């Protein structure tokens, strides 16, 4: 297996098209299956009624938002270490999708919080706060990349920022968590979730796979765009 064969943008370009096509198809099929399980198979929650069903969008989106940042930082690190052109392109292709999922996770979280907690937004929850900061980190990555003219230099600067960010995410999460225990006031907690029915879990996993496939497809389409834009 020649791993480095596809490291060149020219050889990767047709592969990206294939990946985008099949992953996009898989995303549609999986999303349909996941939504079917979510809406028709999974039982109504005893405490939250039908409102909980947003979990099938919310939780997979939150998972993907963090996972994509790690993948982005991985490509950023590879790009810095080996100076490969494609790695920087991959990182900047992933960033908008990651920001999108972060935003979806925050938005659906607010919509879910309104009927269950009685408020759209709670300052006390560590996960809310770190998700918001994650969104800022994505925006920072994209803004820095956009403001540097030379694409190769932009790749490297943004890559360094992504690496600094990935080191900081756990620190931010735990600092906000400890801050939360300091402010005893916040009484609502997401972590006290009741034991989950198996169909709920499977619905969530299928949706997560669907989002994953969508991310691959979207990133591949975007990377094709970037390869064309830079004319290599």
């Amino acid at each position, binding site marked *: 297996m020649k791993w480095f064969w596809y490291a060149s943008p020219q050889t990767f370009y047709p592969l990206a098209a294939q990946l985008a096509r099949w992953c996009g198809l898989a995303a549609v099929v999986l999303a349909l299956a996941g939504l079917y399980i979510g809406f028709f198979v999974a039982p109504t929650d005893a405490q939250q009624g039908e409102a909980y069903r947003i979990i099938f969008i919310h939780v997979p989106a939150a998972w993907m938002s963090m996972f994509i940042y790690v993948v982005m930082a991985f490509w950023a690190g590879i790009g810095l270490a080996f100076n490969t052109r494609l790695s920087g392109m991959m990182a900047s292709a992933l960033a908008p999708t990651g920001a999108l999922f972060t935003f979806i996770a925050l938005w659906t979280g607010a919509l879910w919080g309104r009927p269950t907690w009685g408020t759209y937004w709670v300052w006390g929850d560590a996960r809310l706060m770190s998700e918001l*900061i994650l969104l800022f980190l994505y925006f920072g990555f994209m803004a*820095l990349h956009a*403001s540097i003219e030379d694409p190769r230099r932009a790749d490297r600067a943004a890559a*360094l920022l992504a690496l600094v*960010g990935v080191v900081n995410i756990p620190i*931010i999460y735990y600092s906000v968590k*400890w801050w939360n225990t300091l402010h005893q006031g916040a009484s609502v907690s997401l972590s006290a979730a009741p034991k989950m029915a198996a169909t709920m879990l499977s619905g969530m996993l299928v949706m997560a796979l669907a989002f994953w496939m969508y991310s691959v497809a979207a990133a591949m389409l975007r990377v094709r765009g970037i390869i064309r834009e830079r004319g290599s």
Partner: protein
Amino acid sequence: MVVWRELLVALRRRSDVATALLFFVIVASLFPLGIGAEPNKLRAIAPGVIWVSALLSSMLSLGRLFAADHADGTLEQMVLGAAPLGVTAAAKAFAHWLVSGLPLVAIAPLVALQYDLDAGLYGVLALSLLLGTPVLSLIGGIGAALTLGVRGGGVLLALLVLPLYVPVLVMGAGSVEMASAGLGGQGQLLILGAMLIVAAAFAPWATAAALRISSE
């Protein structure tokens, strides 16, 4: 040597240093005007207000960290020079802290006085700023190096650096609040110290890498 040079430069442009310090005082004085003069409320928000003001003031002066040296080519000499760039970056961050962080530590009790903060808390407040503001200078150095010569650098710098400042803010303001609750702020202060050690060990090298990227 770099520290000495930076201090000399700062001394010859005293107004810059004074501006950052004044900014800190003004921002901290604006909060009561916006929130109201109720003493208990002010006492409760004082640690947070002082820390947010310190954050903004430190960030405001970051732009000057490398800009002048970048403009006149000194930075290029530093990148090409024999001294390890990481050490130079650490020295720059240290000098930045000496002119922008240390004065805040000195003047913070005065602002705390305005907020009628309990006198026993001044020590914790000053200590938390003493441990926390160098972390701000170190992390800020990475951002300042990344945004060198970039259009819209100032606003971009805020976008990059402020999210990374969050843990320092949480721990710094938290230590004072814990102490005011009678629980002692040692835990938060120790974490701030740990952050300082980690930042001092790694941030200068990240800054050096960023300088290499932006000065090629």
